[in-house]
């Protein structure tokens, strides 16, 4: 077995333990390095939010099937995103499908791993039937006003485009740049608190 194939097989096996499945292994797009980055992001999320416990991760995030597309980006009609670089949508009952477009890989490893966590947070929200984004709105006093999201408190510029993005970016920031530890803060402590409460 070639080294690349062996490395891919190991990452796929590692991800399966987290109920994360690669849906298009035969397409030939995934490299072992990319799968390794996905796994690294999953481990960061597990350690930052779920006390290092795989079972806790699986219970919250649910089943996720990941794909990689040769397209640079794609229209995500139901999320209102045109030319999105990654999309997570409902897969089956309480499970999610995530597709990474090539744009996801063009901004560096750190951006890609942050995007993996961001997409897994959408899966988390889907698994909770939208309860995560709803709780973030309630906890921060944010709401929708004339069709536009009114974020209250501090969140990322992308988080201010909608409550689901606010939730997903709040999780990503809590994993990589939490207010409780960081200095260059992008979200307020209330958002980190909510993410950690929902992770319990």
């Amino acid at each position: 077995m070639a080294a690349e194939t062996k490395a891919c097989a190991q990452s796929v096996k590692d991800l399966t333990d987290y109920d994360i499945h690669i849906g298009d292994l035969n397409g030939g797009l995934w490299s072992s390095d990319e799968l390794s980055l996905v796994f690294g992001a999953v481990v960061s999320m597990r350690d930052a939010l779920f006390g290092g416990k795989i079972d806790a991760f699986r219970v919250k995030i649910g089943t996720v099937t990941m794909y990689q597309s040769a397209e640079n980006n794609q229209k995500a009609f139901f999320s209102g995103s045109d030319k999105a670089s990654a999309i997570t949508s409902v897969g089956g009952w309480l499970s999610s499908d995530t597709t990474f477009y090539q744009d996801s890989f063009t901004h560096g490893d750190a951006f890609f791993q942050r995007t993996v966590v961001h997409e897994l947070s959408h899966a988390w929200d889907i698994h909770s039937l939208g309860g995560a984004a709803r709780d973030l709105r309630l906890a921060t006093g944010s709401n929708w006003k004339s069709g536009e999201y009114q974020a209250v408190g501090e969140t990322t510029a992308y988080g201010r485009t909608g409550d689901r993005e606010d939730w997903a970016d709040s999780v990503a920031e809590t994993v990589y740049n939490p207010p409780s530890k960081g200095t260059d803060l992008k979200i307020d402590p209330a958002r980190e608190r909510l993410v950690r409460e929902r992770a319990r």
Partner: protein
Amino acid sequence: MRTWSPYMPRIYAFILVISILLTACVQSKPPSPEPQVVLAILRQYPGGTLIEERILENNGDVTYRISFAVQTTPDAAIANYAPLFRAIGMKENPSRGPTLDDLQVDYRWTYYGCPYHEVAMTTTVQKLQLTYTYGPCR
């Protein structure tokens, strides 16, 4: 074998109306502006002297900080920028939370599409500060 149902015409009509409405919504949205277009708008403020322009980060999202030395008010700055941003498809974002460096924001404009764009405006007695962020949707 397919059978005729009295509800079928109504279902088809409903699908047709929804399709027309959705098509109209999709078509009415202008394309995401080029960052250079947004920057060209931001770099000019009547009576203002550009005193700072810097890129603050680059990790997928790109953020610019642009500052003018000028005596102005939030209303005057909004009146200057609002029609220009509206013309390229950016809308008022009702969020009023702080931005980088804990500055209180007077006004925000967002392009709700991909790549997304956001301009946050802060005015002080002697200074107009604009924070511009854009990046890919995910």
